[in-house]
């Protein structure tokens, strides 16, 4: 169980870092006009969303199919 607590902390910390950097890159990317830039924006947005989901999981707001981690 302690292992799971540790994992949740790591997940949360990582998610904050990655999520913020994704958001900042998104803001930096915003004015660009190329087709690939537009796609990149979408991708970064979804990346940030992914991080939000992980944070919610780490806080147990999304309980998920939580089974104790082995190994």
């Amino acid at each position, binding site marked *: 169980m302690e292992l*799971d607590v540790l*994992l*949740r902390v*790591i*997940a949360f910390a*990582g*998610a904050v*870092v*990655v*999520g913020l*950097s*994704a958001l900042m*890159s998104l803001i*930096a990317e915003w004015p660009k006009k190329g*087709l*690939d830039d537009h*796609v*990149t924006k979408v*991708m*970064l947005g*979804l*990346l940030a*969303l*992914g*991080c939000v*989901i*992980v944070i919610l*999981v*780490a806080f147990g707001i*999304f*309980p*998920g*199919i*939580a*089974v*104790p*981690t*082995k*190994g």
Partner: protein
Amino acid sequence: MATHVLTVDDATYQEVRDQRLLGFLLFLISDVIVFSSFIYGYIYLRSTVMTWPPPGIEPAALYMAGVNSIVLFGSGATMHYAMEFFKHGDKRKFVGYMIATIFLGLGFLGGQAFEYFNLLHAGTTWPSSIYGASFFTLTGLHGFHVFIGVIFLITVLIQAQRGTYTQQRYFGLTAGALYWHFVDVIWVALFSLLYVWK
């Protein structure tokens, strides 16, 4: 005159690059379709039973996967930075972030291998049940894409070191980046559907 030729060539390059970019995006879309039909299958099968996972089936560990997801998402971020640094001509940082991306990708694969090991150890195999079927098929398909992506990035990195790409002409790099982002984003969906959805 020379300048004229040059502009024509840049236009030529632009023309071809646009075609390839569009082609590549269409390819990604068709890949999304492949994933979505497997996801549809997963949701369909899941809707036919009352309890998920079926009793006696050991599901994958959530928090482990959460950490692993962050590893992959992180690689997405580093990939983006690598791109940015390349565009601004900072070769050294570019290489650094590329390598970081590649290792994070490998890390994710390692995490998945560990997870598979645990599951198989617990008796949750591919043919064991509809849970095993959907879980291993979807994550396996994605893992395969990550693996391809890693190879893709390594190739692109070598190419870059060989100086194939100039600051104006780096379609291979763009493709690599887009593919990697695509792999990330697919995982957002898979993580939510396979682990978080209760």
